[in-house]
Structure formats: structure tokens, C-alpha cells
């Protein structure tokens, strides 16, 4: 981490987005993570994505669990409300927050220990329920704050910094998200910002449960030979399914690729995900094919990245519960309390 404080004044020529904010307006406090930590790159990608999406920072609620990854919401979107909840339980808190106010955007930040170990249940059930959110797991396969223990996403046979070989099978959150009904599933790499930013933009614009597993090397405890979550390993084994461009509903669409190479997926809010296929015939709207493709490549030791699956017409928990368009936290007593006359009638029925 650095001790240098950020200058409070912004350069007057900094570019502003359509809602009048500069990139700097999306920053948060100075990171306290290690220099070179993948998580900081993800924070930078979130900042870039929100700026490019013209989101007003205060319309985002950012929630996290406990751990290195879960500290990061303090380091971006300083004008947003944040909530560092308890270990592994961000999904339930986010679910409740989302039910209370459907008008905000929800960003859930978690880690592999937080989501795949202690919080595996909450992760799974949030996916099942289709809570509208961008759920980002900053996956480094290791516990950082407690100094280097394996997490549940560590690959079988991978080696810890102390030389211990992991004998347990890994939890694959992407495969689980696909199985459990997430309607936007992607894997990114903190070292590939060009890919990560549009993935995050697509997730934030998505109408249901969006999940991104971001391989994010831990420079302190899991960046050595023998690790499958190191910068070198992921760079060498990265297999991207497509290149992705995120096109907002307002931007004019100009086709600059040969037909057949590009698949356009338009989401419910009009935004367009333009996928340039790097694998012939890869269909990102086919859940089962995505699962097969990913697992086949994984068996060869490859890390498949990119937008793996999207249901462009996804709905969410509010749709399932038929909640009012007015946010529940904005309803007043006249709409919530049935009143004395109704109570008198009810009393009469109980005699």
C-alpha cells in the first residue's frame, strides 16, 4: 500500500461523463492492500465501468463480506453507501437491501474464502433467487489477511507458498452459478482490464443475478510457481471465449466486424453486449453449452475467461415477488397500515 494521500483537487481538464462526473469522482479511499494486488486492478476496473456507464455514484450500494477483497469497496465509489457485513454473508444482506429499495444498483464484492468457503450457501441461494446485482468474487485461491491458508477455490495439486500441496477438490463458483440459475456468468482476470471493464459494465446493466469470478493473484501469498492463481499461470493458460464490447443503449451501433464473427446480445435495458467470438460456434446464450465448454477446457488446465453465459431477458427476485414499482422503503403509513376500521372488522371475525 502507499501512504501518499491523493490530491483532493481534480485537474480542471479531466474528462467528464454524461452525468458530469470525472473518473476521480468514482474513486474511494487509498487502498490498504499490498502493492501489485490483483484486487486493486479490479477496483480500478469498477471505477472505469461506473464512469463509462454514467452512473451517479450515490445510486450504487456496495456490499461486501470479510477479507482482503471485502475491504475494497472502501477504495472505490467514495460517494456511495457501503456495507462491510459479516464473513460469507454479504449475499443475504444485499438481498435484504435490494428488497428494501429496488431503485439502486447493487454491487456485491466478495472473495474466494468469503463466497466459496464460509459463504458457499449464501452465494448459492442468492444465485437461485435471482437477486439483481453484480456479484464480483475476487478469486486468489488463498486467505490473505490470515496469511496464506488455502481457500476452497485452490486447485487440487496446487502448491502453497510454504510448499504444502492442496489435496482437496476446488469449488468452481462459475460452474455453480451456471447450475444454480445465475443469468449472467463471466470469468475475468485482474490482469486483463480491457476484458474486465466491459464484463463489469454488462453485469451492472444486467436485469438479474450477474456473477463474475475474477482471478486476482495474491502477490503476497499465491504468486509463486506451483500456484494456479499466479499472474504467470493465468496469463499462460488464459483461454478467452470472446472479446466483448459493451455498447450503451444511447450509443449508435456501427458494425465493424465481418458477419459471423460477432454475436450481439441486447439486454432488457437496451444495452448491447457485442461478443467477438474467439471460438467458433460459441453461443453465450446457451447455459449447458457454456458449462460443457468451460469444464472441457478446465480439464486441460486452461482458465476460460470472458462472458460465458447471459440470458438477455432475465428477470429478478422483485419480479418473482411482484413487489411494487415504488421502492418498499419509500412507502408511507397510509399504504402500509390498514387502519382502525379494518382492525375492528378483523376483531369481529375473531369472536
Amino acid at each position, binding site marked *: 500500500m502507499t501512504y501518499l494521500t491523493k490530491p483532493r483537487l481534480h485537474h480542471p481538464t479531466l474528462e467528464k461523463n454524461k452525468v458530469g462526473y470525472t473518473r476521480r469522482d468514482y474513486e474511494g479511499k487509498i487502498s490498504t492492500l499490498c502493492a501489485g494486488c490483483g484486487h486493486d486492478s479490479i477496483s480500478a476496473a469498477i471505477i472505469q465501468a461506473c464512469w463509462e456507464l454514467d452512473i451517479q455514484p450515490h445510486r450504487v450500494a456496495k456490499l461486501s463480506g470479510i477479507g482482503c477483497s471485502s475491504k475494497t469497496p472502501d477504495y472505490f465509489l467514495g*460517494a456511495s453507501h457501503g456495507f462491510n457485513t459479516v464473513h460469507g454473508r454479504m449475499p443475504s444482506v444485499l438481498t*435484504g437491501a435490494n428488497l428494501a429499495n429496488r431503485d439502486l444498483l447493487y454491487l456485491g464484492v466478495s472473495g474466494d474464502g468469503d463466497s466459496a468457503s464460509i459463504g458457499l450457501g449464501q452465494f448459492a441461494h442468492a444465485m437461485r433467487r435471482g437477486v439483481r446485482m453484480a456479484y464480483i468474487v475476487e478469486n486468489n485461491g488463498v486467505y490473505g489477511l490470515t496469511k496464506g491458508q488455502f481457500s476452497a477455490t485452490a486447485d487440487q495439486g496446487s502448491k502453497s507458498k510454504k510448499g504444502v500441496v492442496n489435496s482437496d477438490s476446488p469449488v468452481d463458483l462459475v460452474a455453480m452459478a451456471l447450475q444454480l440459475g445465475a443469468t449472467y456468468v463471466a470469468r475475468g482476470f485482474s490482469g486483463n482490464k480491457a476484458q474486465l471493464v466491459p464484463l463489469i459494465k454488462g453485469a451492472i446493466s444486467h436485469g438479474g443475478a450477474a456473477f463474475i469470478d475474477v482471478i486476482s493473484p495474491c502477490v503476497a501469498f499465491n504468486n509463486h510457481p506451483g500456484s494456479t492463481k499466479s499472474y504467470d499461470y493465468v496469463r499462460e493458460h488464459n483461454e478467452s471465449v470472446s472479446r466483448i464490447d459493451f455498447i450503451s443503449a444511447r450509443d449508435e451501433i456501427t458494425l465493424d466486424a465481418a458477419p459471423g464473427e460477432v454475436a450481439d446480445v441486447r439486454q432488457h435495458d437496451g444495452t448491447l453486449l457485442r461478443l467477438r467470438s474467439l471460438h467458433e460456434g460459441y453461443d453465450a446464450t446457451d447455459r449447458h453449452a457454456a458449462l460443457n465448454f468451460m469444464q472441457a477446457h478446465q480439464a486441460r488446465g486452461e482458465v476460460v475467461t470472458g462472458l460465458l453465459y447471459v440470458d438477455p431477458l432475465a428477470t429478478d427476485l422483485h419480479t418473482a415477488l411482484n413487489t411494487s414499482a415504488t421502492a418498499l422503503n419509500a412507502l408511507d403509513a397510509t399504504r402500509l397500515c390498514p387502519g382502525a376500521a379494518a382492525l375492528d372488522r378483523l376483531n369481529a371475525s375473531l369472536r
Partner: protein
Amino acid sequence: MNRIEAVNDFVIKFANVNGSGSASANELFAKAIMRMGVPVSPRNIFPSNIQGLPTWYEVRVTEQGYLGRRGGIDMMVAMNPQTWDADVAELESGGYLFYDSTRPLPKEKFRDDIHVIGMPLTEICNAVYTDPRQRQLFKNIVYVGALSVLLEIEPEVIEKLFGEQYKGKEKLLASNVQALHLGRDFAKEHLQAPLGIRVRRADKVGERIFVDGNTAAALGCVYGGATVAAWYPITPSSSVAEAFQKYCAKYRVDPATGQNHYAIVQAEDEIASIGMVVGAGWNGARAFTATSGPGVSLMTEFIGLAYFAEIPVTIINVQRGGPSTGMPTRTQQADILACAYASHGDTKHVLLFPQDPTECFEHSAAALDLADRLQTPVFVMTDLDIGMNQRLCEPFAWDDSRPLDRGKVMTAAELDAGRDFGRYKDVDGDGIPWRTLPGTHPTKGSYFTRGTTRNSYAQYSERGPDYIYNVERLLKKFATAATLVPQPVLRPAAGRTPLGVIYFGSTSPAMAEALDALALAGVQLDALRLRAFPFPASVREFIDAHERVFVVEQNRDGQMHSLLVNELDVSPAQLVRVRHFDGTPITARFITQAIQSHVQARETTP
């Protein structure tokens, strides 16, 4: 032979097999007596089972209005061969045994000192009905018919109840009336009626309603403005969430759009339930969960977070017998300490103690207000006895001018006006800080909520002074809570007395009866019914004003006693523990005996 003679004052117990359809017939029996203007107090005694195990329904008929469990059985309707011996043994001498005499039983299965009334219920039903399910179900109505003759319950009242229950279902109505008269006709012809115990029309019910506490608590949450409910099924609390669903469907659907002004999630466990409630409370919606002891254990980490991060949370704890899975279908008041101090570190939580369904309604609505006002978890500490039994109680009341107290929420206008916002700063002297809701203002009022230490402006801090400022402010807030919670209710003795008694929750009806009995026996007691923790100043004053104070509660360890000693620094010697904890509701007989024997022991020892 001795014969129990009593009008409008007896206890009748139905011994049934779970899943045999007896519950609705037994409820019909209780309601019919109530409709004759005679108070009744029924209790379900049921197993953790869906079908096959024994279940009982105990109805106390009490013109005097003593709604606690009395103890002792005057009449047994013995419909379950599995429990026959114990059921027969439980009868008071001179009592009445009603049974299905289709299959003859050997003489040694009976007692010499009870009156036996045999009726071939199975034979009667088999003769009339061909469908096996009907034979079973109508057997229950047939015995209600016979009992109506034996106890002089007006048949018109029962028919009227059928009419209400089967409105629009004429076929069901007719067949139930037929079964009723099948029983009545047989009883009139073959049985000696009436018995020494009888029902006589009175006017002692008045405006009171007949409802269970879980339904009432759910209704309180509707009236109190709860919009988010997250829960996990657990006996005996599940019917809170189910009743909330039912009332929301009735009262909370926008007539214009058909959309719901509520969201209910059956979560994957209690941890997720409380997590959702915390998230919703943080984001400005009124939210609650309903659970029981094991659920509270699971929720504990989140409860600590809500206490420390100051988030409104309402928890309805319908207590059952603990520890562990304990007695899931029996009642206790044994989660008091677990809730008062839930979570690691120094924590204290607000507890409310409703005495009956009316207060379940009031306290649930009040809990939502208090949670918002105090920005902290608030428990409604009901129990199985109140929650799952229908109880005669005062009608629900609501003042339409009553606002929802949303507490200290700073608005965008206030922030724009330059008001200083320190999320954890005591600016009003009551220990309660101001909060902002997510999304309030583009540049002002945002903060990071966390379970770690922070300074009064919500910035991460591990500095000792910041920590101490914060946790001492929380204590100040807790002192403020003592002035806002429902205050204790004093029932003074007829004259001056050095003896006092403290009680709370479902002990209330048994206590009222015990106080009358003790007064008759010459033991005068001032009685204070606690309605909340933290204890208001009047609790300490009450203890100080008496030489000895009995603390009556339904757990083994005297948890309320411990809480009083711990929080008020009173001498433990001044408080006398009276504890009932076998899983059945406490009785007046138990309390009377415990207090009387203590008083006598003191009188005989110099």
C-alpha cells in the same frame, strides 16, 4: 363415589392421535363454550410429528376468567389407545372418563374412583359412513355432539359455528350438522346426562377476541409497517411468517396495480434470514424475522453486527424448550439471557415481553418503531404457550393518528442545509446518532457501514478513545431505551406488604390467579409485570420497596433473576427464584404452592 360438581369451572382434556382431524373438532368445542359467554382457555399439547404420535387438547372452562393452565383434569376424552393408561391416571378423583367403547376393555384398564362413560363411536360411524376418511373425521364431531349433551352445551351455538365455518359449502355444513346430531341423539338415548360438570350461559366474554399470539404478532408487523420479512421454518414460530403472508395478501396489495407492498423470503437458514433483515433495515425498510431458540443461536453474529453498526432489526422469538433441539413443541422462557446478551463482545439488546396475543400485536408494532428509533435489534419474546394457542384477549386496537416512528434519518434537504453528519456521533444527548439511507445525496452523507471500530464520523479506527466513545454512547443509548420501551405494570396488594413478585410474559394469567389464591390464604404480594428489558427505573424502585421479591419464570436457571441481579446490582438474597421448566405452561397451583411454602418456611425459622 365422589363426583366432581362444577358449573363453568372445570378442565377437560382430549387425548387424540396426531393427524386424525381432532384439532378442528376440539377447537369447535372450545369456541362453542366461549360463544355461550363463558371464558375458555385451550392449550394444544402436541408432538414434533405430523401423523401418528399422541396429541392433547386441554380446555379450561373458567367463568372467573382464569386463563392460565390450572393443573389437574376433571374430564378426559380418551381417544388414543397409545396413551390410555397415562390419560386415565391423570384424572382427578371423582372425574369423568369418556371413551370409545366399540372394543371392550378389561376392567383393570379403568379406575374405581372415576365415572366412566363409554360410547361406541367407531361402531356408530362405521354404520353411517362408508368412506374411511369420513369415518375418522366425523368421529370427532360425533363426540362433540355427545359432549354437548353431557355438558349442556347449546347445540344451536355449534350449528351457528358450522354455518360460519362452512359458509357457501352447503354439503359440508349438512354433513357436519348430521354428525353432531348423531352424537347428540345417542347421548340423549343411552348416556346419563348431564354430568356433574356443566356449562351454563353467562356473559363473561364481552368484547374479547379469540386468537393465537403468532397471528397477532404477524398482524402487529403489518400494522407496524414491516415491508420485508425473511424467515426460516422453525416450530413454534413458523405461523408468524405464514400469518404475515396471509394478512399482507389481504391488506398490502395495491388495488390499482395488483403489486405487493411487501416482500417475504423464506431463506435458506436463519443466518440468511437475519442477514436479509439487516440489509433491509440498513436500507430503510422495516423488516423482521420470526424464529425460535436454535434460530437465535445461528443469528447471533449478525445480531452483534446490528448492535454495533446500529441497524434496526426486529426479531420475534417464539420461545420453546431448550437447550439444543430441546423440547421443540413445548414452552419455556429460556432464551432471555441468550437474547439479552446475544453475540460476542459487550452487547445488550432490547427485549419486549408480551403477556398475550393482544400484546403480541402491540409489542410487534412497537418493536418496529423502537428498532428504527434506537437503531438496534429489538426482540419480541413471546413463547409457544402464547404463540400457538388461541387465547381469549382484549381486542386489537389502533389509533389512526399514530405515525410510524422512523427515528433519526437525515434527509437530503438537511444535508444541503449544511447539517453536520457524524454517523456515530451523539448530537442530541440521548446516545442515538443520526443515519442516512443509501442513495440520499450525490455528495453528502454517504458512509461506510462496518462491524469494525470506527470514529464518530464512521471512519475506520482502532484508536482506544474512539472505541470507548462509541461503546459508552451505546450504553447511553441503552439507558434511553429504558424510557421508551413498554413500562412495567404494577398490581398492588390490598394493603402494605414486604413481599413482592416479579413476572412476565406467558406467566401472566397463572400469576393473576395465584395472586387471588394467595390473597385468600392471607399472603399479600405487590406484583410487577415486566414488559421490557432494559429495566426502567421503576423496577429497581419496586425491588427496593420490598424485603423479598419472588421472581417467577419458566426456565431452570432463573434467567430473569440473573438479569435483574446483573443489571440492577441488587442483592441476590433479596430475590427468590420461582422456576417452572418441565415444558408445560406454568400453573397457578404451582406458583401458589411455591410462594406459600417459602413464606411458611420463613415464618417457622426464627
